[in-house]
């Protein structure tokens, strides 16, 4: 028992990070009505700012001016926290303020754009290599429960709890806190009472930025300072915030600390002889699975009682017109693509192959988001699963074409079905959070697992061979200069992409597509018209996962291996950003998004011919997503997460105008 207590205490360090981020999430949700998944990125910004100041530099986007010497710990901490607060204020003014009338899902997607933007700025300045963060708090080790607990753990825990209590008191007893609560509960009535929800949002987001930054600075010495660790710490923090219903600061603090303790105890349990291992190694990603379970349980448990600020808004997505002509443009584009594959130099040919695969990935979002209005943050997890099945079937059973790819795609579709089952109870923004947690868990627990995952250096995939002809990128082909990738593989990718485009276009024109649009337009109206809303959502998720399964198969053959890094959460976030930028509801948008994806034609030109690092693409994706969501008219037309809670919509008019019907030549005609 002593050991368990010891590990609970040791887990207080990461727990304080989750607690602080959860409190920051609650602040932003209370003030701006946004589930800010960039909270971890804001913490990272604070930590890097502090690091820069201690090194004698000021961290600014694209600038890193020399301050003439390092700042002391205390002034550096104060300045870094102030700059983090400034970042929070900037985000509120430049992004959140423009989304006040938007549906929660649009706000969530905007915060995804912020996450990518902050991450890209950090990568461009510091690269992806981890740094050792300078410490703020001092203290040696305290011997207790048969081990040593660094005093810093207890200090950060105390700080997290004190902040939770202070925020609770402030929101209960101060005028500012009461005003924020009033605006959170009923914005319209708050306005009529003379309160300024916009001003309150600004203040709350500023505090959230300062809090996230401070937590990042204090905890970074316990984590590696890199562009990913702190940014993705938002996943367990979301779990803690969900337990706190995005309302209670003390519950958020305690739940965050609990998540840290859970992580630490899991580490301990894995060293016990009876605990299952994976080929003799502790199972990686176990804490991420636990976090996923906590989030799923919290959503199931509190799903209906979670505050759905903005959930009453039922505006629509950008138009999703049914394509009038399919055959001729497809033939023309295929012909152009085929010529390009034969004449392009090897690097652009590879970029074009990557683009074709990325187009298919974007198509999965056209179906899921463009047609049905749902968001999944696990898209590349489906692709990874498919690729892994292809690899394992080849290694263990010697299966190749056509069974391995077919089974891989089927596995992805099946996982899509399992992943969407919570949609029966969880909708919209909460479903997006769940898929985020699922993607992280699958990435770390599934793909990295030594037994069934991709192994340390990727799981090898043999080239597809039919009648002795190598169809893979290493196959020979009389044209194309003889250098890989083989134009034949490119032609196969081109054919598959064209097929998928035609299929998705036909889906839009079909009755199923019309029912999907009906659900997208208004779940209530669709349900009233006799459409099974959950059935449509499940169908869309499965189709989307199926399409990503195709992506997984092509990616596996493309690289000759399945590397977990290809199927990470950041890739999915970039995919969403670029698909949205291109046009999330039309096939043309998928073509544009595919061009811009990492490794695609645009990235190849940028990197190999212009000499710009590919990291600029991450920045472009993030900024574009934020701009697209905040500035286009469609920004205020994201579909609602679901039916408004009883008693909310009848009191408030929708703050943004709702168009009468989805644009496009063919209006949705739900079946009776």
């Amino acid at each position, binding site marked *: 028992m002593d050991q368990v207590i010891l590990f609970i205490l040791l887990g207080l360090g990461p727990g304080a990070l989750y607690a602080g981020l959860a409190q920051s999430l609650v602040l932003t949700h209370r003030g701006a009505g946004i589930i800010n998944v960039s909270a971890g990125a804001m913490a990272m910004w604070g930590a890097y700012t502090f690091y820069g100041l201690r090194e004698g530099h000021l961290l600014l986007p694209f600038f890193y001016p020399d301050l003439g010497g390092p700042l002391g710990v205390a002034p550096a901490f104060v300045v870094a926290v102030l700059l983090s607060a400034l970042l929070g204020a900037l985000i509120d003014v430049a992004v959140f303020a423009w989304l006040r009338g938007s549906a929660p899902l649009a706000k969530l997607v905007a915060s995804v754009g912020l996450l990518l933007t902050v991450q890209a700025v950090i990568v461009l300045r510091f690269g992806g290599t981890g740094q050792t963060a300078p410490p703020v708090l001092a203290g040696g080790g305290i011997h207790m429960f048969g081990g040593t607990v660094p005093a810093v753990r207890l200090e950060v825990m105390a700080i997290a709890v004190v902040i939770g209590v202070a925020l609770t008191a402030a929101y209960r007893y101060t005028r500012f806190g009461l005003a924020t609560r009033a605006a959170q509960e009923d914005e319209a009535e708050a306005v009529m009472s003379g309160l300024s929800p916009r001003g309150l949002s600004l203040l709350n987001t500023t505090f959230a930025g300062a809090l996230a930054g401070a937590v990042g600075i204090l905890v970074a010495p316990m984590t590696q300072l890199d562009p990913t660790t702190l940014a993705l710490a938002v996943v367990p923090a979301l779990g803690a915030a969900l337990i706190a219903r995005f309302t209670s600061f003390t519950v958020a603090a305690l739940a965050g600390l609990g998540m840290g303790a859970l992580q630490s105890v899991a580490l301990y349990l894995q060293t016990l002889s009876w605990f299952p291992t994976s080929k003799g190694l502790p199972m990686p990603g176990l804490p991420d699975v636990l976090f996923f379970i906590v989030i799923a349980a919290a959503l199931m448990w509190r799903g209906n009682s979670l505050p759905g600020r903005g959930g009453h808004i039922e505006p629509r997505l950008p138009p999703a017109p049914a394509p009038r002509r399919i055959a001729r443009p497809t033939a023309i584009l295929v012909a152009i693509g085929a010529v390009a594959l034969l004449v392009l130099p090897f690097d652009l040919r590879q970029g074009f192959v990557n683009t074709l695969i990325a187009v298919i990935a974007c198509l999965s979002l056209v179906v899921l988001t463009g047609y049905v209005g749902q968001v999944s943050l696990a898209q590349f997890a489906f692709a990874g699963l498919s690729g892994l099945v292809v690899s394992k079937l080849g290694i263990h059973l010697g299966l190749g074409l056509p069974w391995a790819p077919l089974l891989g795609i089927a596995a992805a579709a099946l996982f899509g079905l399992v992943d969407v089952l919570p949609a029966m109870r969880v909708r919209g923004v909460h479903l997006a959070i769940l898929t985020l947690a699922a993607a992280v868990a699958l990435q770390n627990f599934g793909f990295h697992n030594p037994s069934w995952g991709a192994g340390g250096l*990727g799981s090898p995939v043999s080239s597809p061979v039919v009648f002795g002809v190598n169809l893979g990128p290493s196959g020979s082909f009389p044209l194309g200069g003889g250098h890989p990738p083989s134009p034949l593989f490119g032609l196969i990718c081109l054919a598959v992409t064209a097929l998928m485009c035609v299929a998705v276009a036909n889906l839009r024109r079909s009755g199923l597509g019309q029912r999907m649009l009906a659900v997208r337009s208004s779940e209530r109206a669709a349900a009233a018209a006799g459409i099974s809303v959950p059935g449509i959502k499940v169908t869309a998720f499965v189709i989307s996962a199926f399409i990503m399964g195709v992506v997984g198969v092509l990616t596996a053959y493309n690289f000759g291996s399945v590397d977990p890094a290809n199927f990470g959460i950041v890739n999915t976030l970039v995919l969403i950003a670029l698909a949205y930028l291109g046009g999330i509801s039309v096939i043309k948008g998928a073509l544009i998004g595919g061009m811009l994806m990492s490794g695609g034609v645009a990235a190849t030109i940028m990197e190999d011919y212009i000499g710009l690092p590919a990291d600029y693409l991450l920045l472009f994706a993030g900024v574009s997503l934020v701009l697209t969501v905040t500035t286009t008219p469609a920004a205020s037309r994201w579909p609602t997460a679901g039916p408004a809670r009883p008693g909310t919509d009848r009191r408030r008019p929708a703050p943004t105008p709702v168009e009468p019907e989805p644009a496009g030549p063919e209006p949705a005609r739900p079946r009776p």
Partner: protein
Amino acid sequence: MSAIPQRSPGTTRRSGLVALSLAAGLIGGGLSACASDDSGPGAGRGEAAPTTIDGGLGRTVSGAAGSGKATGAPITLGLINQQGGPVSNPEFTVAAQAAAGYLNAELGGVGGRPVKLEVCNIVSAESQGQRCGQQMLANDEIELVVQGGLNVGTQSFHATLAGKKPDLIAVANPGPDVSAKNAFALNASSLAGKAATPIFLDTKLKARTVAMIADDNPGNQEIAKSIKEGIEARGMTVKLTTYPSGSADLMSPMTAVGAGNADVIMPIAVTPTACIAMAKAYEQSGIKIPLSASGLCASDTVRKALGDLPKWIFSGSLLNIHAPDPTGHVAFYRAVMARYAPKGAELGINAPAGFAAVLAAAKILHAAGPDRLTVEKVSKAARAYTGPLLMGPPKLRFGSNPQMPALGAQAVHYYRYEGDGKWVDVSQGWINLPS
């Protein structure tokens, strides 16, 4: 509440005299963590670079016969490195370029032709391994590829290169590096550890229980797995735990693995950040058990961050550049780097491997006949290469291990750092040299 875990008397007996002396050496030392001053007590102490370059040694390891500046048509070497991502080894390329600079300026290049490096970096994605492979194949001037330590992109790189050009692997990792077609690994790195570490722990440290700590980076897990299997095969007990790769919190894994009760602690730390985190946790825990780490931790970056290197045992499949070296290899390396590398260049981590690999490549190209190089001739010469590899084991023999035919040797040298710039050769030479 109890104090820090104490080792049982039986455990202490098992650890043997060597372990006791190591522990004694550690007592009272304590690491001066967090010092960030360049002029710290250990910074560069006693390690001023020699100014004289031993040209004879240079000619021996590079196969050069001439001297002076190379003037002919350049020979292009492909160079693949992992750089710019979470695991980044820029020092590998810097050192390789310094070696090429020396070769071209003082040894007449390869048969009078200067060596040019075409560098392709893998940052963090499998697609970049593929791109580098394609780049190497598309450039007809490249007859030989030199590969740094990769823990991402390896599969796609080898799948693309597919043995069509010889690949001289400067730092091999578990996975396709060991069995790739037409690949020749000069430095078995962790794979050397797999074979040699159990022998060292058993025969030199007399250890029976080993506490291993690795992050959950897939590449590091693979390394941990292979070393663990090797140790267990020799009858020792291993307790292994992993922690999230982005974490610098190693107190929890140290405690989880019962580091205080083991005979020796073995962290799989391959980045300066991980080494620094390990050193801080080691100090904070107050444990005095011997700690055997990779020589990658004996870097200037780690020394700068901690004020001095931690008083650990450092393993290396190349000679330790800080320790006394009667062969003169390290002095030669330091002298060339001082003259041809940028000021302040990292001399440790993967730099020695990059430096040595370019000189070995030169020897192979000399053997293949620099005037009419073909892929076939270079491949044949690479297969026949037996050394001597600068700072490496005295002899290499490719294909001696049928399971890992690409490896030339799996020998390791172990040194203990005692502070104040003092090093002890605890393995007393190479362990597990090829027969």
